[in-house]
């Protein structure tokens, strides 16, 4: 069965619609800025964070007293796609998937005295609260598979439609910028002192970001601009916090996605890589691109525009890439200047106008997980 993408939205520092976001990316603008904010860290740091009042501005027409920042981001993004399409989560044939790594973990930071608000920090609890806001007929399915969650959520939604369980699935993903995550990446010495520089010789780590993004998947092509191709997930079985030494496991799912879609590497217009700008991730991805026959294919990373948005990353980057393919452009990799991986790959460093029929989205994350999926323009 064919599964189509019929609507999409991104809520991020770069805007509250896909169009606003894409226009900013086309202009080369980034959500990343230097912050001196002791809520998140004692020393100055770079991050892609919504400005004070920005999220409130996006959500002022909704009644969201008693909702957290995380919940507001998700609601703003889901409400936008439902409004665009007239879809409703109260339809029993419509499923709801929520992808996140840390959900309401900000509550742990805000807590001062008394018992911890454990219930409110449970991912299923926040997802149910969001589902209830939209009067969802089905219990939300929560996916928390580290940094690959967003793409895994799209793949899972696609399969649940293919199996006949649902006709439509609303797939949303989000993570908020938190001290919790920033301190963790800093403890690994994995945060860049400059805005991140994916695949660059001078790259020195990630820049974190925040955002929410949503797609509606459907078994009917009405209003669709993209068809979902095949996708796959793999595990490195090597290390819980470092990527594969060979890239073979990511390459395996790249091949699975391409071949399973009835395509060859020559059909892929560009690869939207994970490109976190850590030394090891980008090196592993370059090796994987070679193993999968994609060394000559333009590749970009969108982390220079959004930072690493964790559970939203796969969704945000797939949506921006769909927009780029629709408009016949291959986006440059912001922050990239000089190739800094041992296996040469064609990192896109300027806006190219090029017809793109298919692109490949890939992600990798802690726990040794990788995912890849083909998107086909209609």
């Amino acid at each position, binding site marked *: 069965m064919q599964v189509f993408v019929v609507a999409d939205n991104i809520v991020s520092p770069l805007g509250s619609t896909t169009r606003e976001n894409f226009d900013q990316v086309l202009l080369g603008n980034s959500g990343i800025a230097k912050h001196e904010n002791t809520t998140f860290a004692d020393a100055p740091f770079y991050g892609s964070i919504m400005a004070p009042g920005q999220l409130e501005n996006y959500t002022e027409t909704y009644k969201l007293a008693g909702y957290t920042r995380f919940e507001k981001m998700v609601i703003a993004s889901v409400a936008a796609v439902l409004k665009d399409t007239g879809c409703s989560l109260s339809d029993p044939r419509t499923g709801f998937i929520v992808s996140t790594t840390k959900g309401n973990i900000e509550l742990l930071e805000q807590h001062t005295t008394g018992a911890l608000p454990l219930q409110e920090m449970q991912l299923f609890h926040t997802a149910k609260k969001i589902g209830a806001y939209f009067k969802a007929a089905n219990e939300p399915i*929560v996916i928390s598979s580290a940094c690959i969650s967003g793409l895994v959520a799209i793949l899972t939604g696609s399969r649940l439609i293919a*199996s006949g*369980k649902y006709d439509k699935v609303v797939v949303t993903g989000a993570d908020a910028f938190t001290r919790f995550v920033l301190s963790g990446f800093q403890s690994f010495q994995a945060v860049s002192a400059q805005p991140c520089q994916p695949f660059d010789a001078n790259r020195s780590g990630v820049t974190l970001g925040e955002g929410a993004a949503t797609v509606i998947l459907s078994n009917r092509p009405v209003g669709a601009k993209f068809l979902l191709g095949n996708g796959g997930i793999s595990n490195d079985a090597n290390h*819980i916090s470092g990527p594969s030494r060979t890239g073979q496991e990511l390459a395996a799912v790249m091949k699975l996605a391409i071949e399973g879609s009835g395509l060859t590497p020559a059909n892929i217009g560009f690869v939207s890589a994970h490109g976190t700008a850590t030394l090891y991730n980008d090196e592993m991805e370059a090796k994987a691109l070679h193993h999968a026959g994609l060394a000559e294919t333009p590749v970009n990373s969108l982390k220079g525009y959004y930072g690493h948005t964790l559970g939203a990353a796969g969704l945000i980057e797939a949506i921006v890439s769909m927009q780029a393919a629709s408009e016949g452009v291959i986006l440059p990799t912001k922050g990239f200047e000089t190739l800094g991986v041992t296996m040469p790959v064609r990192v896109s460093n300027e806006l190219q106008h090029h017809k793109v029929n298919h692109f490949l989205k890939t992600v990798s994350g802690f726990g040794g*997980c990788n995912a890849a999926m083909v998107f086909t323009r209609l």
Partner: protein
Amino acid sequence: MNSELAYITGSVVIAEHQVLKNGELLWEQDRNADLNAFLRAAYDQFSGHYPKFHKMDALSKLGWLAAEVLLKDIDNSAFQPEETGLLLSNRSSSLDTDVKYFETVKEFASPALFVYTLPNIVMGEISIRHGFKGENTFFVSERFDAELMSAYATQLLATTPLKRCLCGWVEVMDQQYETAMFLVSNEPTAQPLTAGNLNAIYQIK
């Protein structure tokens, strides 16, 4: 829905300080023992030769142990690494370790704890131990969703390179814990992979 059937080839339930394999009690401990002491004793009983175990958080230890017991005496050599996948779920994600990690942030953030603040790390630990390179996805739900688990595992076995899948529930929050882990495949057994059969095993403890 997929017409192809899948089957349960084995199960392990660890709860209330008891370890059950395929419905039979293998080992038990005094129920007053604290969770970490129980996990350590279970490790000594069922493994004893995997030092990395001691670095894991409680969620990973529990899932790792269940997989260890479940896969004992099973010949893995008949399968390619990418033919075995993992589909796990729980209620509390990694919240138990999240709270412990954030305690360290006030003084000196612990990278050793931070890496366990994701629920899918337990799948990484099991994959490393057994060399599994297939699909892995972690779901979070209020209760064990036997319906999703049985239908989705069946679908993966029918439509992806997976020939076997470890699926189930692995939950830790403070001293509260339980796991029910299943090995499922297309190889026929007396137990078809159905929500009813998964729930019957999950509830035997």
